[in-house]
Each structure stands twice: as C-alpha cells, then as structure tokens.
C-alpha cells in the first residue's frame, strides 16, 4: 500500500526543484520569463497542495499519502514523507506565502537596483523546496538536512538584497540558527542511534510501546538533555525570548518578500517542530519543562508587545510584534491540551497571514518613500485609500479583533491554556494582557501611518498600488475574514491528529472534560 506510485506529497515537495532546474537555464536577460517561471512554479505548487488538502482524510489521525524509500537501511535512514493534521495546513501555508512572496517581488526596487534577478528567484524556489521538506519529512536525518538547507537561500536573500547592514544581519541569522541546529543534530543522532531508526513514527511507536525509553529522573537527566537539544534549536527559530535577538535584525534588513517568508513560514518551522518532535518523543520531559517554557513564552508575549510599542522603525515594530504573537503559539503548545495545540496550529496560519500582510504593506510604503521611519508618514489614507482600507483589516486581524482570524487563534489558545493540567491559570491571565497591549501598539502603528493630516509634501503624490500589489493583498484580506468568520474548515483537519497526540503525551487527561485527574508534573 505504501509505495504505489508517486505520492502527491512527493510531487508537491519536488515541484519547486523542477522549477528551479528550468530557471537555471533561462538566460539572465529574459527578466519576464524568469519572473513568470518562478511565479508559475509556485502557483502550480500551491494548486497541487490544495488538491492534497482536498484528498486529505481529516478523520484519520495517522500519516497519509506516505511515501517511503530506503536510503541507508543499516542506519535506519530513509526518504519518508507523509501528511497528517499537524503538517498538512503548514504545507498549504508555505505554498500560499511563497506565491505571495514571489508575486510581490515583481517590481521590487532593490532587485532592479542590485540586479541578479534570476539568482533571486532561484533562491526563492530553493527556499520553497526546503521549507516544504521540513514540514513533510518524517525522518530525523532528512528533516535535519532540509532544516539546514533553508538557511542557505535565506542567508543570501538577506545578504544580497537586504538593507544597509545586510551582511551583519545575514551572518547573525545564520550563526544563531546554526548554533541551535548543531545541538539538535547531536540530540537526534543520539535518539536515532539508541532507537536504531531515524523514522519518527517508528521512534514514537517504540516510545509508546516502551521498547525505546529515555530515562527522566530530574530536570537534567537523559531525556531532559535530549529535549533541550531539540528545544533550543526550535526556540531560536520561533524565536522564544531571550533567544530572539536575531529576528529584528533579520527582519529589518531582509527584502520585503524575505520578511514575509521569514515571518510567514520560517518561524513556524520552530513551533511545528515542537509539536511534531518534542511532545511525542519526549513526553515526560515536555510535561516537566512546560511551566518553564510557558513562562518564557508569556515573558515573550509581554516583552514583544512592550518593545514593539516603543519602535519608530515600521519593520522593527512588526518584527517585535512577531515575538509577541509567537509567544502565544508556544504557550498553546505547552498547555498540552488539544484545544491549545489546535489553537496554536491555526494561529501559525493566522500569524503567517497577518504578519505577512503587515510586512507587505510596510514594503509597499517603503518602495514609495524609501524610509521605514514612522515619523515620515501620516495621513496616508488620504493619499492611498485602498491601501489604507486593506491595512485596517490586516492590523485588526493582527491585534485579534473578533470576526477576524487573529481572534480565533488567540482565543482558542487562551481557552486551551486555561484548561491545561500542566500550567496554572496565571499564565492565561498574563497572556490575555498581551492582547490588550497588541491593540495598543497595532493601533498606534496604524494611526501614525494612515491617520492624521497629510502634512508631508512627499506623501501627497504617492503612486497608486500596482496590479501585483493588489493581487497579493486581496487574498490576505479574504483569508483573514474567511478564517475569522468560518474557522471550522481550517481547524478540522488537525482535530484527529491532535487528539491522538495529546492522548500520547498526557495519557490520563485526554480531554478537558476530565480535568480533575490532574496528577502530572507534580
């Protein structure tokens, strides 16, 4: 049953690479062909990922559309892909954000200025391939390979087409993430060697059956150390306070599409990794460490919001708001309830849409004014009413306004953490404060750019939105409203998988209804 032909997942994974190979042979001068090949590839990949969604069976918690080939059988390493409730929607998010990212780069000033358009789109497609790979592979070694490969194109996207301090930001990004991944590599080598296989579902099955076990007696025993090895890598990627300092630099220096992808997809690799690997592979350690991690997450929520409010640079403001939003996601994961985790998954999508949208808007303003300073704007609504209206929706969605997508995610996360058996109520209370702060800094952001008098001469004749700029913003607004009004189709796919995951991690409290059974984590 497994290896009958080519799985759709494999096709989706390798399509960007096909586009990459075609692009390699298009001459540099044919700018039009280069752009449309890249866009075409990403759109076809997106369409196929939707087909994948349509064929996905939400009631089945197990991996679907599995494809498996042996690679190094004596080490138990193989090409092993499949989708379930945890990663299916992440793949769709990736292909969606990539299409947006590529389309939004069509008239980017910085590419015209620095040239090397082809190289830019080559890196974009390479990045897409690697990111889909991170989400779909089920083998630790291959996962690590894809995880590392994502670094290379991002490094160049920031390093070549970034802002003033681009090389500094690119190197910082690379070294931070690399330092984390080295720890993860060590941990996964140990796990794989002990288990005799690197296939994650088999490792998890072994842990469930008791044939593989990593002892946990105290906060720094084997399982804890392995847990931390993975956790630090993911925490840097997310990023969790206090490991976030690479993020503002990378965001501020990256080109617009780079920021969109960074916020939209790359950060999610960290939180996805926590759900996919940390919880099921190290259940006891996850429970034991949950309060500490939740504390960091909550600090991140407040800290990100606080710092965000003080920024005068638009991109930095949005970057710090990411730190705050990602804190919610981590809190939802380590609440260890199915509602919390489902909320985290939908919030990953929401954050990709809203923050991606914010970065697009900032990028469009930057294209027109060549400054990211908030003080240079004011009253833009009058000059660009369409952009103003769209921005209002995106800003409201980002701050969690009921009726829009952000609310759904944050509300479910808070609900999940409230019913958590491993976390106290205090976390929820403080996190809820984060929503209020979000309203403050986001409205501040909107007000200083779009409201007030159109008093600056340079702002009076800003060019209208280009067709491709409208084309990338419209789907974002549509999705923000759609998820906000009707979240069920987006949340249902993860139902079954998350339920079974939570049952594995916290066996005696499968649902919130059984709350009194608390006895975990002392």
């Amino acid at each position, binding site marked *: 049953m497994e290896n009958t032909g080519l799985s759709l997942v494999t096709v989706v994974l390798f399509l960007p690479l096909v586009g990459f190979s075609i692009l390699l042979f298009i001459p540099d001068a044919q700018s039009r062909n280069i752009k449309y090949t890249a866009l075409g590839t990403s759109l076809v990949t997106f369409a196929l990922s939707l087909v994948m969604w349509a064929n996905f069976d939400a009631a089945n918690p197990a991996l679907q559309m599995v494809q498996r080939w042996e690679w190094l059988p004596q080490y138990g390493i193989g090409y092993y892909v499949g989708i379930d409730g945890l990663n299916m929607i992440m793949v769709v998010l990736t292909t969606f954000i990539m299409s947006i990212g590529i389309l939004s780069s069509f008239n980017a000033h910085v590419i015209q200025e620095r040239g090397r358009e082809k190289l830019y789109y080559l890196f974009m497609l390479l990045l897409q391939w690697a990111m889909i790979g991170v989400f779909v592979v089920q083998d630790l070694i291959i996962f690590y390979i894809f995880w590392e490969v994502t670094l290379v194109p991002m490094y160049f996207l920031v390093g070549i087409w970034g802002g003033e301090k681009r090389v500094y930001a690119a190197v910082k990004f690379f070294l931070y993430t690399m330092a984390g991944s080295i720890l993860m590599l060590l941990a996964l*080598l140990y796990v794989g060697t002990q288990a005799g296989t690197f296939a994650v579902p088999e490792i998890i099955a072994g842990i469930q059956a008791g044939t593989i076990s990593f002892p946990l007696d105290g906060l720094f025993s084997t399982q804890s150390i392995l847990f931390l090895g993975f956790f630090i890598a993911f925490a840097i990627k997310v990023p969790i306070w206090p490991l976030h300092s690479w993020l503002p630099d990378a965001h501020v220096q990256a080109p617009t599409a780079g920021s969109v992808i960074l916020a939209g997809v790359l950060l999610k690799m960290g939180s996805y990794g926590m759900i996919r690997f940390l919880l099921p592979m190290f259940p006891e350690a996850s429970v034991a460490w949950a309060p500490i991690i939740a504390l960091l997450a909550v600090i991140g929520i407040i800290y990100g919001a606080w710092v965000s409010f003080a920024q005068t640079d638009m991109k930095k403001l949005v970057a710090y708001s990411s730190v705050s939003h990602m804190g919610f996601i981590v809190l939802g994961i380590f609440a260890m309830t199915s509602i919390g985790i489902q909320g985290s998954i939908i919030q990953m999508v929401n954050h990709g849409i809203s923050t991606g949208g914010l970065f697009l808007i900032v990028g469009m303003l930057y294209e027109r004014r060549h400054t990211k300073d908030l003080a240079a704007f004011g009253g833009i609504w009058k000059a660009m009413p369409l952009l103003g209206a769209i921005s209002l929706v995106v800003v409201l969605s980002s701050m969690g306004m009921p009726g829009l997508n952000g609310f759904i995610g944050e509300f479910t996360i808070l609900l999940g953490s409230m019913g958590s058996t491993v976390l106290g109520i205090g976390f929820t209370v403080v996190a809820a404060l984060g929503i209020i702060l979000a309203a403050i800094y986001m409205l501040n952001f909107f007000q200083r750019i779009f409201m007030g008098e159109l008093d600056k001469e340079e702002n009076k004749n800003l060019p209208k939105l280009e067709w491709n700029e409208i084309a990338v913003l419209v789907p974002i607004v549509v999705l923000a409203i759609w998820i906000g009004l009707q979240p069920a189709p987006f949340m249902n796919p993860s139902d079954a998988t998350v339920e079974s995951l939570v049952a594995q991690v916290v066996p005696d409290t499968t649902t919130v209804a059984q709350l009194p059974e608390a006895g975990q984590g002392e």
Partner: protein
Amino acid sequence: MQPFDLLASLPAIAAAVGLTITSIVVLALDMFLKESQRRNIAFVTAAGMFLTAGMMLAFWMPTAATEGLYWGGMVRFDMLATMFCVIALLGGGITALITIDVDKLGRSGEYYLIITVSTLGACLVSSASDLIMVFLGLETMTIPLYVLAAFRRDDKKSAESGMKYFLFGSFASAILLYGLSLIYGFTGSTNLYTIAEYMGSDAFTVNLVPVLVAITLIVVGFGFKISAAPFHFWTPDVYEGAPTPVTAFLSVVSKAASFALLVRFALTAFPPALAINGAEVQLFWTNLAAVLAVVSMIVGNLIALAQKNIKRMLAYSSIAQAGYTLIGVAALAADGREQAVAGISYYMLMYMFTNLLAFGVVILYSNATGKDDIRDFAGLSRRSPWMAIAMTIALLSLAGVPPGAGFLGKFFLFQAAVLSNLTWLALFGILMSLVALYYYLIVIKYMYVDKGEDEEQAIPVSGTYRWTLAVVTIVVILLGSFAVQPIFNWAMEGAQTLFASL
C-alpha cells in the same frame, strides 16, 4: 607455502601494472609529440588511470576466494586496498585533467609522468602489508611530490616549498623508519600479520614501553603524511608555494593513501585483541589518534579563520579535515570499529572529489586572473555563475552542510565515534565544524555578495575544465544523495574483510 601463481597474483598489483604502462606511454609521447600538442598527454594520463580503475572494478574485484597476501606477503589484495587504490587513481586522473591549461605544467610530459609514479606509490601504500613495502610505497609516493612541489624552478615560492617539503618529509621518513626498524627488531619479521601473531604469542618478551615508543614514532611519521597537527608545519607553506594542481594532488591522494596505511597498519600489527604485559596496546594508539584529532581540529579550524590566501585557507582546512578523519581512527578502539573503517574510506572518497573540485575552481580562477587571495573571488557569481555554484557546492561539502557529500562523511565518522563511546569526541567534532563553517562561508560571501573589480569580464573556461568540473560537481552531489547507499555498502564490505582477516 603455496606455489607461485603469476596469473592469480597479478590482480593484486593491477593498479601498479596499469600505471607502469601509462607512465611508459607518457614518456614515449613526451619524446615524440611537438610542444604544441603535449597538452594531450593529460588526456592520455587521465585515460590510463580511469581505465585502470575501471578494469579493477570490472574484472579484478577481490572476492572471498581471491583475497589474501600476494607477492611473498608484500601486498594484501582486498576490498579496502581496491577502494583506496581507486580513490588514488581517480584523484590522479582528475588532477591530470585540471592541470591541462596551467602554464608550464600543462605541456610538460615529465609532470604527468611524476604524477603517475606518485599515484603508483599511493596504490602500493594502500595495499602494503609488509614493513618493507610500507616504506617503499611511502617513498615512491612522496619523493615525486618533492619534485612536483618545486616544479616551477624559477619561482622562489615554489622552490622554497619543495625544499621545505623535502626537509620535513625526509625527517618524518627517518622517524617512521626508526619506528619500523624497532618493530622489526622486537619481532624479527617484516610482515604485519606475522608481527601481530608473534607479539600475541608467549614467545614475545619485550617490555611494553619500547613497543609504545615504536608505535609513537610510527604515528608521528604518519601524522606528517596526513598533515595532522602538531606535525603540520610544512602544510601551509607547501600548499601555498607549490603549483596549485600539485597542491590539489598532494592534499587528496597522499592523504587518502596514508590514511589507508594508517588504518591497515594499526589494525593488522596491533589488532584489537593484542595485549602486551596485560595492557591493551590498541587503546594506546587510538587515544593517541584522539589527541591528534583534537589538536588538528583546533589548529586547523582556528588558524584557517585568519587566512587571506585561498590556498593557505584550504591548507588549514585540510589539517582540520585530517582531524575529523582521525576521529574515525580513534573510534577503531571499540564497537564502532567497522563503521569507523567504512567511515574513513567514505570520507576520503568524498574528500578527494570535493577538494579537487575546490582546487579546480581555484586553478581556473588564478589561471585567468593570476590572483589567489580570498578577496579576489569577489563578484565571481556575476562573472561566472557556474564556477561560483561549483565552488559553493565544494565549500559546503567541506563544511559538512547537507547538500554536499561532506555531511554524510562527517555523519558516518561521528556515528562511529558515538558507537565506540567517544561521544565527547563527536561533540567536539561537531562544534569544530561550526567554527569551520565560518571561513567557508566567507568565501561564498565574497563570491555572491561582494562586488569585484572587473565585474563584467567573464572568466574563460575551456571545454576540458567545464566537463571535468561539471562531472565532479555532480559526483559530489550524488555522493551526498543517491550514491551513498552503494558506496557506503562497498566501504562496509571493505571494513568487514579487513576485520575478518585479523
């Protein structure tokens, strides 16, 4: 004693025979061809080597029935020898091809002749199973390299490099020879298997300390050949001064062959079970290897960070690479030993391709521009995008970043170390690869991010280089992806036959 059977004995020295024929043909062509046509000798040399390698793989693969000691116990015919011999042959052939347009070297027959002879030495080294053959092979391999390093007589740096290499080299050979003679003195035999047998028997009454002294001397000698720190002082100067193709050749072929010898020598003469006066000898030399590994990784990686010249940077990187490989040697001590031997073989194979690829690009670049500082690579991605891609893949593979073969090479070695309970060494290796990443990335940064002086001028790439580098690039990627399984199985087989014979 079996009667001597020439036909059955020939496969054991197939490479030597093939290379001898090649060298005679090269010599003849050098006499008859006109100056303008002499660059074709490169093709003949490469063809001779590839053909020999192909024939060995196709017709003379060792089997359980044919492997064993041949030619009076001088050489051993087994999978490990075949594998390393093929590495040397491919390395020699690729070196000949990437020399073809190099000024002075490319058109002189004697250059190709010397390369062929040195490769011959490397093949003998990888199959040597007798002290005499060990020394003979090493000298056959190294003496031509002294000549090659000083090949540009009119260039002061090249002459200095040859002289330095010769002085350090003969010093190390003397030390090695002293160690070998001590072993002979203790046991009265020159055959590695007989030595091991004698040392394991009750008749052996020599004290432990002199044996350890002999081992230390031998390891020091090998340490020089593989350019492990602290015996690395010759490496940067020789790498920088010697003509670049020679550097390329000596960085891969002589290193690979020396590692083959180190593994075979150490395992055969001092097998895992051997204990003298109740002390396990093996633990001594594996610990020695672990120390060398740590020192090499530190020295190589940290000094490489500060280099401005790409050849010097690659020299220090090659010291570091020797350090990683020595992790494998250290892992021979315990349960991971089969993986360790296979890991070393795989690492040397991928290192041969990867390093030759990097040097190929350096040769091409300095041929066209006459420069070889790291800074000069600025803007290469605009001048020659394909060259920049090839160089990027080579550097990433050296750094051990996934798409290249280097990641799996390191993976196998570190895995072997973990299996042998040397987790701390694997940890150290991984941390050091993080340091290494920095100096490899710097080159990539220059190629892609920075602006060069003559941006618009494309670098001319002749057909030979284009094809050679393209094929090598593809091989590096294949070794990191689809080809891993068969090649590693082959290496495992080599490792198993080696242990079966102990």
